[in-house]
């Protein structure tokens, strides 16, 4: 079976026309995963019940009860709970944690008969843009294994780009689906905040986190999104169906030129401009827009997110679950458990979060950042009065080398410049392959990001399919 360009839709056809069974399809991915995982470090664990899952899917198909994802092999990021499986968020502090319930998205995927091949690597607690913060080693970009795959959903991206799964689920707090999708040549989709329930996703920044798909095509990403979306009373921020609009195909595209001037590699900007020109030739109207406060988004994000992370991660204390290191008294139990259990970036962000929330500083940092966040939301709201979607590059650079930015937190944070404003505003965005640029003789993928108003998720699939056609042609 040729896995290289196999999409969900094509695999569905093979299964429904009895040209392959789910057991055979899944076995092909398992062989590939077992062969390549040592090199890529994409999976932290390949599950041992995969064949049983596939058999159940074949039974569904035999009964004529198949759904779009029945028998489709997927990778699941290690921060999404599957009952009975370890969910470590790539952290030592949860290395022994077995999920006691299914995440809402996992319930939905089980109902659909999807097959979970394994749990995929990530930056610890989704803090990072390279997977170098994983406690279990960096994942490697299939386009150049000396380079990072992006993060934090780097493992899921590598499983799909390296043909170790057809598609994958990731989470996106500040670009963690879109940036690795861009750097690995995939489609990555961050839904409207509230479109997908966060129940059973290990929390990083609760006002920012969303679960979403990484896939080889827009259609595949849409199929996954349609399966996992929907209101869930266990996530009080999940939104009812009535909130979402069945938007028309976007015609008018806004480009925030003022925001693209600094820090973007020249050939990435050239590729972006050429892509925008192709959209114009294709009949889209291109207009310049202003997002006056978006320049503060990265700074505000690196206050809001660590603040939420430090409170969310306060629960890992070695008392109720997870790893426990005993000290000389109760306080020392906490100090030792958290000191040994958390990795360097997690410790760094917890300290920053603790500082920006502390008495005497919270007004100047945390409250000011939430006010700036409101201004960013307002900027987007105003911009969308005049345009249907907004376009930017997904990442200012292609994949960088392993170790290149590891010792400089601020250089690492800069990788998120175009993706964090979207989480701050809560709007949906998609990253699409936008060609390749050359570094050290290797051609590396880069991404185009389209952003839509709240609830207009479906319009991103429309423009995404247009863009696939235009770039592919």
């Amino acid at each position, binding site marked *: 079976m040729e896995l290289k360009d196999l999409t969900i839709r094509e695999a569905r056809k093979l299964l429904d026309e009895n040209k392959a069974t789910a057991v055979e399809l899944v076995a092909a991915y398992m062989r590939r995963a077992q062969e390549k995982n040592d090199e890529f470090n994409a999976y932290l664990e390949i599950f041992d019940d995969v064949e049983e899952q596939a058999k159940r899917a074949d039974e569904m198909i035999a009964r004529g009860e198949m759904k779009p994802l029945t028998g489709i092999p997927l990778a699941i990021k290690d921060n999404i709970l599957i009952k009975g499986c370890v969910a470590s968020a790539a952290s030592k502090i949860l290395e022994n944690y077995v999920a006691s319930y299914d995440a809402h998205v996992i319930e939905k995927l089980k109902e659909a008969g999807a097959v979970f091949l394994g749990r995929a690597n990530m930056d610890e607690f989704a803090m990072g843009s390279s997977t170098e913060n994983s406690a279990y080693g960096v994942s490697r970009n299939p386009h150049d294994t000396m380079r990072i795959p992006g993060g934090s959903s780097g493992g899921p991206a590598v499983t799909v780009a390296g043909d170790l799964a057809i598609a994958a689920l990731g989470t996106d707090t500040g670009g963690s689906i879109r940036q690795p999708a861009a750097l690995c040549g995939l489609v990555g989709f961050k839904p409207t905040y509230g479109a997908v329930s966060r129940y059973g996703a290990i929390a990083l920044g609760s006002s920012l986190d969303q679960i979403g798909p990484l896939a080889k095509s827009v259609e595949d990403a849409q199929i996954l999104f349609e399966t996992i979306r929907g209101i869930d009373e266990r996530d009080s921020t999940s939104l009812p169906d009535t909130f979402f609009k069945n938007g028309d195909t976007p015609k008018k595209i806004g480009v925030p030129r003022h925001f693209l001037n600094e820090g973007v590699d020249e050939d990435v900007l050239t590729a972006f401009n050429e892509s925008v020109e192709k959209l114009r030739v294709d009949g889209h109207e291109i207009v310049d827009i202003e997002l006056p406060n978006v320049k503060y988004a990265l700074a505000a994000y690196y206050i809001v997110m660590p603040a939420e992370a430090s409170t969310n991660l306060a629960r890992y204390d070695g008392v109720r679950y*997870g790893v426990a290191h005993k000290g000389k008294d109760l306080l020392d139990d906490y100090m030792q458990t958290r000191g040994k259990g958390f990795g360097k970036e997690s410790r760094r962000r917890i300290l920053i979060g603790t500082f920006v929330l502390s008495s005497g500083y919270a007004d100047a940092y945390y409250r000011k950042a939430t006010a700036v966040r409101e201004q960013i939301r307002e900027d987007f709201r105003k911009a969308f009065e005049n345009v249907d979607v907004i376009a930017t590059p997904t990442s200012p650079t292609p994949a960088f080398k392993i170790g290149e930015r590891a010792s400089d937190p601020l250089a690492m944070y800069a990788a998120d410049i175009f993706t964090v404003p979207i989480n701050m505003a809560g709007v949906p965005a998609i990253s699409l392959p936008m060609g390749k640029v050359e570094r050290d003789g290797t051609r590396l993928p880069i991404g185009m990001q389209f952003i839509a108003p709240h609830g207009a998720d479906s319009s991103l699939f429309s423009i995404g399919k247009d863009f696939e056609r235009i770039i592919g042609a």
Partner: protein
Amino acid sequence: MTDVDVTKLAKLSRIAVSDEEMKDLEKEVPEILAFVEQIAEAGGEVAKETGEHYNILREDTEPHESSAYTNEMLEAMPDAKNGYLKVRKIISQD
């Protein structure tokens, strides 16, 4: 640059930090704070609107059957005895 007592922050955060790492953090934490402080330049306030999200309360009923998850949770505990989580004694005589 903001004067930050990183040792105190680590204590507040309940994280034991080695002397060696403390040296790195004493450099990195003020650098990160210096970067995020640019938000001070942002002006103006936006009236906080009730957006698409608001406080949602569920019905005050049993969210799931009693004891449905008890065994899983007991198994996840670092130290359990007779169906209880075992914790360190924190009250002493002296």
